[in-house]
């Protein structure tokens, strides 16, 4: 709990990517990532007022080529919806295009977002084994899904901003 507090303190108005790893599995390549963040007060209140909050993860694997444009091997994007059912007083976490999870508490729901399951980002043949790829990973609260007045407000209000830096690392395909 103390460590978690430290992490959140460091990422006061943002998201920290605490773990980023790509694993090769039988059906393809999966991203194993963990994020550290906490909702801002405004976001939390808006969420509990019934407003859904969307988190989007973007990942891109490129292979630098000195003779041509970089080879964009994989570019994937996944959005997760977090919302609160004011009648049933439960939190739903929905990975768009997948099933909905229900949590009694916000922390449980956030934990599901902070530590998502391994995400299949590319099929088996998407990467060339042995090649080194540059991975760019980014996770942010997606403002495109906010209502328009909030989008305007977010232009100069950090309460409505929650985003990570672009994290880049290299991955040697297996």
């Amino acid at each position: 709990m103390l460590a978690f507090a430290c992490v959140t303190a460091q990422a006061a108005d943002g998201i920290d990517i605490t773990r980023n790893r790509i694993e090769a599995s039988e059906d393809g390549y999966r991203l194993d990532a963990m994020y550290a963040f906490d909702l801002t007060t405004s976001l939390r209140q808006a969420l509990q007022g019934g407003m859904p909050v969307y988190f989007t993860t973007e990942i891109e694997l490129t292979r630098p080529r000195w003779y041509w444009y970089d080879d964009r091997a994989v570019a994937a994007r996944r959005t997760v919806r977090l919302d609160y059912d004011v009648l049933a007083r439960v939190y739903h976490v929905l990975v768009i295009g997948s099933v909905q999870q229900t949590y009694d508490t916000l922390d449980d729901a956030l934990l599901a977002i902070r530590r998502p399951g391994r995400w299949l980002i590319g099929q088996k043949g998407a990467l060339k084994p042995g090649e080194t790829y540059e991975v760019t990973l980014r996770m942010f609260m997606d403002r495109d899904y906010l209502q328009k007045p909030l989008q305007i407000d977010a232009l100069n209000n950090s309460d409505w901003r929650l985003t990570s830096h672009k994290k880049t690392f290299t991955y040697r395909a297996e």
Partner: protein
Amino acid sequence: MSKVLRYALVVGSAIATILLFLLASASDNTGFLARNFSWLVGVNTAVALALLLLVVVYLARLYSRYKAGRFGSRLMARLVLLFAGIGILPGLVIFMVSVMFVSHSIESWFDVKIEAALDSGLKLGQAALDEALSDLGATASTTAATLGGQGDDSAHIVLMRTVDEGMQSAMLLAADGKLLVAAAEDRRSDFSGDLPTAQMLKQAAMPGGYARIEGGADRDFRDNGEHNGLDAATGRRLRVVLAVPEPPGMAPRYLQLLQSVPVNLASNAEVLSTAYSEYQDRKVGRTGLRKMYIGTLTLTLLLAIFGAIGSAFLIAGNLAQPLLVLAEGTRAVAEGDLSPRPIVETNDELGTLTQSFNAMTGQLFEARSAVERNRAALESAKAHLESVLGNMSAGVIVLDAEGVVVNSNDAVHRILQVDIAALAGRALDQIEGLETFAEAVGRAFSAQSAAQSAAQGGPGGASRRGPRRSHWQQEIEIPRRPGTDDDHDITLLARGSRLPVGAGSGFIVVFDDISDVISAQRSVAWGEVARRLAHEIKNPLTPIQLSAERMQMKLADRLDPQGAELLKKGTDTIVNQVDAMKRMVDDFRDYAKAPPAVLTPLDLNGLITQILNLYLAEDESDVIHTALAADLPRIMGDPTQLRQVIHNLLQNAQDALADRPPEDRAARIDVITEAIHYVGADGGSGTAVRLAILDNGPGFAPKILSRAFEPYVTSKARGTGLGLPMVKKIVDEHGGRIDVANRADGSGASVSILLLKLAPEANLAGNLAGA
């Protein structure tokens, strides 16, 4: 530059208007525009900045012109301020009101009471659902207690009974989640989708069991489709999972009851929750909304202001331009530039004004050029008149009523030897040397006036009006001015008339030197006299001579020697004198009726050389020197008469040199011929031959000089005075001119003959070829 700015402004304003419309439309919460709202805001801001830049450029230009005191900048500045003010002030007022309105109205939507009511309603809904859930939990506990220890068949009956109480389904499950017995409202239903998860079973094992409200509208579905509480309510159900209290030794079993929330309750609760969520959304978004509205308004205001200022520039420019054109025009007219100004193409009064202005300058220009033309015409006429006057051989003097010289021409100076131009403004009788002339002129005018008065028979006053005889004419003889060596009088033919000069009347005197005419008349008269005298005298001469000879012949023998001697002397004297008289009479006759010249082509140089043979001794003692032009054209002349001319002139020169005192320098006579090129009256060039004979003797006496060609005027003791008149007569017959003068340096006389008739060109050419 200005045109570019102008177009930029117009285009910018148009773009701004379109963008503003889009922005305003985007404030509605839907569609494409809503999604591109930020983009629109950005573009609008950019346009506003561009307009601001434009306006700043305009203002800077205006300011610099104003500072430099450029003409028209003050008017422009005032107009711009005026129009900009008119544009900006209402905009500002509307902006203020709108901002207040937006701020307050948005805040007023969010009311504590409404919020509390929605909160309470939500709690009510939650309570109702909780109530239903706890009811279901109670039913479940009762059923579970009944089921405890019973077999599957009896359990099925219990479950059936429970389902009949309004359950959707009732299931009895093993600890691993396997379905043991199930009962459902709809008997054909498939239970697999309703099986509890392992987590639920785990929680059910805990005291209190698992009780949860499930379902609810899917948010995505709710966002995309039309929201309907009934549709949403269908998914809402209650699930209770409990561990069945089994007797010891039996495997644990679980009871699950599923019950649909009553549609009535579900739909109302759903509507309530939706309303609550939306209210919360709005509440959260109100800051953004206000920002959005105020931002849009501010942007609109800025665009309006910049547009207003820009338009102010355009309007002010359009309004000021005709005025500036006119002002420029007035300044140009003041500087004398009357060229037409560019016309302002409008139909209003300003356009008319510029057109009138152009018409005015056009008329001014016409008037001024007419004046210029008249002046030029006058000047040229005056110049012409002056040149005519100046080149007239007659002298013209204009006098005013008091006899003061107003004007005179060059001929006056030549004829009267008085610099009368320098004396203009003085009375004629005050001018030294002209007293006689002035007196004669005055007398003539008086006489004319008197004659006129007499002719009209009235008093002098009446003669001022009515026709007058226009002029008088009179010969005036005035003495040469003292100080010149010419003591001969000048004979003038003067003609005077009155003329109006300015306000009063004046006099004009025109006169000519007719001394030459008088001289010619005298010459003609002498010729006639000579001819008659010769005739009358010659007749008795022969009888006188014959009588004298006869007397000597008859009486010589009869007389004594003394008497005979006397007779011989007497008759010899008579005969000699008669001979002399005969010669004289022959001379007269020759002068009076010289034979007409027979003109043939003649080489003048050859003739001169021939004649000079008689005079030249070809040694040092010769006084005659020749300078004969080599390329002298042949002339038309009578060799005999020309020979006489040359003889006469050489004789005169020799006579003149004989008279000179011996101590003087060596005597010398020059005979010169040359070809003279002149410009004829018809403008073509002509050639003449000039023969000049010069000596370095005493020269002509002034009195002789003026009348040299009159017969019997001679300075020689024994001359007949017919030499030069003869020469003149011959030269006249040859169509030439003769001038006698004293040499300019005062050493001797010069006679110059100009022969104008040349031999035809063909002869000349043939002659040249032969040579």
